[in-house]
């Protein structure tokens, strides 16, 4: 069958049309071999645009097409669907990005036009070598592994477990609940932390489809979305668990106070971290070490903020909550809250703060807190010019990543940021995903979070999993993947070494390498490792890149 190629130029409203002379572009493309139509439209991603594209494909019996518009990151999927609607394989088109890479960045219209022509010609040369790719389907295991039995992990487990989905909840310590158990009261309901957990533990107990492993840790992870194989070590025994997705909810730790310098003496009596104070409150009496009731309390925010380089964002609220504790239990105590900046987002926080302040808590902005133990505790600030003696100090140290995050990141092959927290795939668009498909990060594992946010994230990740791994429904892995030209492969296995996914194996009988289509992620590293280019990546074949290079260098 003779190839019939269409080229479509999107005006993108005024975005492209005003910056690129599309008539000139059209003229330059019309004579290309096998091009049967060059057409433009105001907005191909609009309803009418898509309809126009679909009809043009049908009317002209197009076998392939190029669409010059915006970034493929934006609308490649849109046009794939149109192609499919028009009855053609959705992989037989190529986008040329003439908006982000021409119209919007090149000032001179002539230059932008020239460049657009080069890009479109390059896309035309590439599309010739595109192949129809068929969807692949793999059966996905609906079960989920949740690492970390804190509030986020518990919440996600509860949301996910059901008759056709098992959840394995892995907890390092001897009990579920995490840090929240240690909170006496939890903003905004001022419910007891333990009771919040207890409620959930009861539900977990009743839920047959949650299997909990306490004092357990993950020691190996293999596989991919839909088919992970995880080795979990509980005590001395190891077990193999097969799941389709993994949620990481390993929480946080407080920064180690001994690492901190410049705050003066942090290791004196009557200095407590927030968690220690919660414990004291829970036990019912707030006293100094000598057993007396404190007359004045200093609460210091932002401990370690300079060292970690970020605002933990949740300590302000809990610090203010401590004032409430003290006001409730020990009315009349002088309370001093030292802060650098107050972080009080959300609809309820500001009101809470104003309320506390009105009740007589002193809020003092200070950047240079020093604690001295000279005949009683003293908080110095304002370049040592001001001094506030207190009976007790409560510190709000920064949240830092949990200890296991490093080894876990390596096992799961997910990145961490400079601070050591796991990195989400995109801070706005994919806040609970990671770069590894099927692995999610929620709660404080990805950065300091309030309980509320942790729970939201737990639900978000659960929602993502529920929507993507539906029992009985099959998954569609990447189809633009590597393949091997058996005639050219000589079996040196360099590609095996470079593949990060174990997606290439060696066939001992044929003496050649073979690509596992499900495991391949389509990065193309193997191709650059193969000197004879026996291995190729669909849609990024050597010949396509070669053609593209020639075209753009014209």
């Amino acid at each position, binding site marked *: 069958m003779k190839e019939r190629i269409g080229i479509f130029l999107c005006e993108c409203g005024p975005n492209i049309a005003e910056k690129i002379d599309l008539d000139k572009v059209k003229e330059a493309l019309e004579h290309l071999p096998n091009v049967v139509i060059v057409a433009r439209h105001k907005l191909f991603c609009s309803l009418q645009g898509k309809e126009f594209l679909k009809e043009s494909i049908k009317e002209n019996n197009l076998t392939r097409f190029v669409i010059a518009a915006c970034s493929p990151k934006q609308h490649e999927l849109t046009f794939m669907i149109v192609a499919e609607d028009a009855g053609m394989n959705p992989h037989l088109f190529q986008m040329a990005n003439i908006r982000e890479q021409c119209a919007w960045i090149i000032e001179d219209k002539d230059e932008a036009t020239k460049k657009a022509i080069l890009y479109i010609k390059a896309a035309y040369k590439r599309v010739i070598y595109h192949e129809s790719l068929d969807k692949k389907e793999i059966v996905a295991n609906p079960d989920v592994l949740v690492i970390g039995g804190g509030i986020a992990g518990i919440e996600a487990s509860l949301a996910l477990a059901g008759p056709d989905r098992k959840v394995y909840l892995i907890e390092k310590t001897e009990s579920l609940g995490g840090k929240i158990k240690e909170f006496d009261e939890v903003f905004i309901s001022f419910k007891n932390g333990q009771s919040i957990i207890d409620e959930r533990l009861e539900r977990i107990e009743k839920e047959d489809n949650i299997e909990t492993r306490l004092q357990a840790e993950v020691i190996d992870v293999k596989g991919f979305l839909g088919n992970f194989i995880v080795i979990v070590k509980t005590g001395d025994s190891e077990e193999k668990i097969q799941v389709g997705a993994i949620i990481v909810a390993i929480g946080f730790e407080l920064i180690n106070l001994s690492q901190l310098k410049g705050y003066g003496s942090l290791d004196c009596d009557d200095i407590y971290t927030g968690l220690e104070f919660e414990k004291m409150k829970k036990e019912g009496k707030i006293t100094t070490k000598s057993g007396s009731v404190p007359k004045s309390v200093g609460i210091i925010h932002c401990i370690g903020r300079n060292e970690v380089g970020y605002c933990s964002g949740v300590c302000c609220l809990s610090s203010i909550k401590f004032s409430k504790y003290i006001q409730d239990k020990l009315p009349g105590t002088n309370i001093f809250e030292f802060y650098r900046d107050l972080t009080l987002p959300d609809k309820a926080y500001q009101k809470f703060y104003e309320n506390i302040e009105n009740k007589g808590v002193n809020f003092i902005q200070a950047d240079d807190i020093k604690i001295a133990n000279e005949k009683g505790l003293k908080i110095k600030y304002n370049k040592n010019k001001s001094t506030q003696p207190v009976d007790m100090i409560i510190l709000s140290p920064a949240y830092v990543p949990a200890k296991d995050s490093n080894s876990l990141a390596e096992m799961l092959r997910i990145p961490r940021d400079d601070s050591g927290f796991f990195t989400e795939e995109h801070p706005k668009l994919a806040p609970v995903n990671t770069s590894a498909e099927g692995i999610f990060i929620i709660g404080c594992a990805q950065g300091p979070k309030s309980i509320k946010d942790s729970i939201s994230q737990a639900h978000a990740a659960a929602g993502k999993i529920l929507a993507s791994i539906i029992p009985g429904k099959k998954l569609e892995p990447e189809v633009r993947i590597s393949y091997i030209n*058996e*005639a*050219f492969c000589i079996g040196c296995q360099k590609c095996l070494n470079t593949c990060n996914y174990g997606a290439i194996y060696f066939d001992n009988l*044929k*003496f*050649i390498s073979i690509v596992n289509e499900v495991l391949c992620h389509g990065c193309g590293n193997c191709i650059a490792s193969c000197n004879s280019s026996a291995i190729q990546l669909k849609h990024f074949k050597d010949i396509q890149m070669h053609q593209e290079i020639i075209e753009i260098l014209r």
Partner: protein
Amino acid sequence: MNKKIKINKSVETGLKELLISLLESRKIKAVFTLERNKDAVYYSLITDLEKVDQASPFLPFMPANGGKLLSKLTDIKSISEPIAAVIHPCELAAFIELIKKQQGSLDNLLIISSVCPGVMPINNISETNLDEKIKKYFESAKNSNIPTGLRENCEICSRIIPTNADIIINLMDKDIDNSFELYINSEKAEKFLGDENGEILDSDFDFANNTFPQNIKDIISQKEKNRIAVNEKYKFDQLGMDGLIDLFGKCIGCHSCGGVCPICYCELCDFDSAEHEYKKNVLKSDLNSRAGVRLPPNTILYQLGRLNHISTSCVGCGMCTDVCPVDIPVGMIFSSIGNSVQELFKYIPGENLEEANPITVYKKEELTNFED
């Protein structure tokens, strides 16, 4: 079409000026011809008139078979604007053979060739007295003698007339330093050439009917005699197994002969493919039956196999001999055996674009003498 143009200039000057004028009038876009730079000689694609000056179209060397190169130039798609190519008769023949295998196209190519006195082995280019040698070469050609120091293959090549070229120049012409003649051998050539180039005369060559002046005929018959003499020297038909082993015993299996061969156009040679790899069990049984096995194996199989693949199309250019690292006279073997195969099928490679390669067609009543 039996016409020729007489140009009153030395052959090289005249040809270059002609090419320049064709470039200048934009009748052609580029010239494909030999260029020499110190001790390097290569085919060059020239678009700039000034650079035509540097060309050496008649330098008696063949750095690569021009037919193979033209195929690389035209195999993706035919040329859109005309190009003139100055090549040797065997290169043209190879090109035509390649076109029959869909590896190129003559469209828009203006082929200029010469009645060929032969070329020298490629490594002679570095010789110190080269200019002297070249001078002698042209002296001999002018006097209708076979120059000395040619490629062995050229000494036995009788296909010295490029009957398919558009324009043919006779280098075996006494007067060549002062005037030369361009034979117009196609309609295409007529489009490019006219009165403005020189005096139009009737031709003394009849390429269609193989009628040539006596001096050319003499050279051809001399070369045919040479071929018979060489056949007698090598006795290819009486080699026997030992003779074959002696002949190819040196072969190191580098497959370079195939690499430079214009007829070997395959992307991956069958003999380099996995099929021809020595398998463990074969090796084991070979070793059991023979006591010794040569590594790498199949050197003779490669030679004989390649002979089977290309002998009907072998043009005897001798590129293979020139590059053989162990000095096996590959070209002589292939040319001689190729010649007998071609005689059997009455097929001359490159003679006629329309004529199918003999092993791609058959007649019901033929070759019955091979049946028992």
